[in-house]
């Protein structure tokens, strides 16, 4: 009945019973994990008990539940009161639209991104973290084409990132190719891998595609670990050349006559210059990605992606070649992932298979979904959240990833549609003419 009629305020006894139940569950969960632990003593395990810690945990759950229920009830009550008030009012106040705010937010963020290195030029850590955020933004925008627009669940996106990174690493260390020469080749190679994987598998239903892409990601990683002659195995590839500024390398001035960036512009050399250059480089790449994807969305093929996401059968009936359209989204997403990989390799100077594990794919997918599928700005917000959370959490050391996992669940429960729920279609049907009174 409570679901239909306005929620009655709970009595204190009911609240206590509810919290007591939660505390009981916490006790059951806590006993094998917190209450008991096995410790290595010599060559055998012995069990240690941590009763005080267990009691603290249960008490925290009890009080936490009480407080949570109380605030949720207050919140619900206030909502009901507000609704009742609004219903009483005869003149309806139109709901404030959030769209302009979101529009301005994008420009604000862009502005902030442009001036960030100038404001923090002395602080290498900030610029480095911002660069990481931008890599994830670019990856998110790439995967957004596949998952958010075309609606294909890809759990192995990191494979294409790895292909791009290793392509650049091999081309530069083995054949002496530069960053800009390698970029299109590595992107093309990643797209080719996307086609090679997508062609046989894209006719599968969504969730089958998920496991196939996951398997593909693992295959690539295992090959990178084991094919030592090609990839250096678990040791990876080191001393990958850094990108240069139109042929001007970022290095301390030397006597061998090499024109450096600092020397050419008559600046004092500092290692921070390269960090800032890398930052602007990934900002440029990310913005190009964004421009490219938003333009693609307006083309027939881009519209077909979104149409397929909404209703595949209707698309078939309308004569859209579903496999080709899906393949194009898949290959494009793969290419963007590959380009981000090239930048990653160039920035790190060292890559190993450890950077391309499943949890990376999961993080990128989480960025797309948390951001609100298909929303370009949402990807930016979600990357900020997911990259900065662990950074802020560094103070918590070993609890860092624990809190990260918890935050992922909480954000999802709090906003199941993503941070920016509003999904703007690329095109809208023109508004019907309003009849004059």
């Amino acid at each position, binding site marked *: 009945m409570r679901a239909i009629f306005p929620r009655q305020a709970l009595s204190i006894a009911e609240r206590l019973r509810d919290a007591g139940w939660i505390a009981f569950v916490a006790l059951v969960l806590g006993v094998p*994990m917190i209450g008991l632990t096995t410790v290595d003593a010599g060559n055998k395990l012995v069990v240690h008990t941590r009763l005080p810690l267990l009691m603290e945990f249960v008490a925290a759950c009890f009080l936490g539940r009480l407080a949570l229920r109380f605030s949720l009830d207050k919140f619900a009550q206030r909502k009901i009161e507000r609704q009742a008030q609004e219903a009483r009012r005869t003149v309806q106040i139109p709901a404030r639209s959030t769209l302009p705010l979101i529009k301005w937010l994008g420009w604000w963020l862009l502005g902030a991104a442009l001036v960030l290195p100038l404001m923090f030029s002395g602080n290498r850590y900030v610029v480095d973290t911002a660069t990481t955020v931008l890599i994830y933004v670019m990856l998110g925008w790439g995967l957004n084409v596949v998952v958010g627009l075309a609606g294909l669940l890809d759990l192995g996106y990191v494979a294409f990132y790895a292909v791009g990174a290793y392509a650049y690493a091999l081309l530069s260390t083995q054949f002496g190719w530069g960053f800009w020469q390698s970029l299109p080749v590595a992107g093309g190679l990643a797209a080719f891998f996307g086609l090679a994987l997508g062609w046989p598998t894209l006719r599968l239903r969504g969730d*089958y595609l998920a496991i196939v892409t996951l398997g593909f990601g693992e295959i690539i990683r*295992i090959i990178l670990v084991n094919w030592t002659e090609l990839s250096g195995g678990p040791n990876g590839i080191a001393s990958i050349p850094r990108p240069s500024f139109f042929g001007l390398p970022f290095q301390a001035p030397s006597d061998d006559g090499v024109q450096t960036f600092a020397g050419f512009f008559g600046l004092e050399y500092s290692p921070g210059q390269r960090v800032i250059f890398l930052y602007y480089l990934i900002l440029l790449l990310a913005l190009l990605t964004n421009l490219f994807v938003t333009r693609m969305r307006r083309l027939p093929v881009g519209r077909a992606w979104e149409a397929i996401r909404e209703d595949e059968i209707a698309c078939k009936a309308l004569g859209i070649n579903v496999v080709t359209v899906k393949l194009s989204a898949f290959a494009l997403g793969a290419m963007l992932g590959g380009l981000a990989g090239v930048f990653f390799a160039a920035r790190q100077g060292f890559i190993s298979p450890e950077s391309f594990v499943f949890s990376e794919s999961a993080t990128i*997918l989480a960025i797309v979904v948390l951001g609100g599928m298909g929303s370009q700005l949402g990807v930016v917000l979600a990357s900020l959240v997911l990259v900065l959370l662990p950074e802020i959490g560094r103070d918590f050391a070993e609890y860092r990833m624990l809190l990260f*996992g918890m935050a992922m669940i909480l954000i999802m429960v709090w906003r199941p549609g993503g941070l920016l729920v509003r999904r703007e279609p690329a095109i809208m049907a023109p508004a019907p003419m309003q009849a004059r009174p």
Partner: protein
Amino acid sequence: MASIIQQLINGLTLGSIYGLIAIGYTMVYGIIGMINFAHGDIYMVSAFIAVTCFTLLAAAGISSVPLALLIVLAVTVAFTSVFGWSVERTAYRPLRGSTRLAPLISSIGMSIFLQNMVQVTQGARVKSIPPIITGGIDLFTRDGFNVHLAYSQIIIVMVTVALMAVFTWLITQTSFGRQQRACEQDRTMAMLLGIDVDRTISLTFMIGAALAAVAGVLVTVYYGVIDFYIGFGAGIKAFTAAVLGGIGSLPGAMLGGLVIGLIEAFWAAYLSAEYKDVATFSILILVLMFRPNGLLGRPEVEKV
């Protein structure tokens, strides 16, 4: 010849464990259509509970192996199913009715959470316990190769077969099984007919967790070495098994588990141990190309 039989035995043992975990994936997928990434970690948690339990029993001086095994199985299954229930209640139930990907992401979050919780509370080091079931039967020797059947392997296969029988009975004969299948076919209709859908889904998660717990105990008995990361590998394999067999199909999950166990054992023995996972996933891709619904999956009819 002798070594083929040996690999068959090893493969079936491994496959039984994968199959038990795969059932959890396939049941959850069948009923709410989500990939539960935290399932592998539930299995990992159960292995830790089993290790604690075995150590406690050893300290208490219970030396009878069958008794110890029964107690550990019962305790681990009980605790782990509470874990299964809590995971569903906190991370997935609030998301029922939202997009398909929302529970997927929260299950990834839950997987990260469980792994790190175990790492923080139980330590990041590998835990090993002394072998509980030792010995075995030497079946025969040919060409200098000794075919060995360990008692632990017999127990694993026997427990799996017995569980499958109980489980099949549960799903096909009991009223819970009927409710579970009804929810799988049409949740709204089941609700209208008075089935408590939330309760059925909770029970499904608990049963899935219980089967994973049995797998966790068996793995502890078989290898005797666990760490907080074992859930990921086993989870991926078991999920692959569920898809290979046809996701949503219970016999399919078991069959898929056995097939993957056999592929792994044979590939590792005859070709290369490093690439056995590559073989597993490649065969998955090949099978899906020719049978897009898995080995035993029913083809889905899409209606407009």
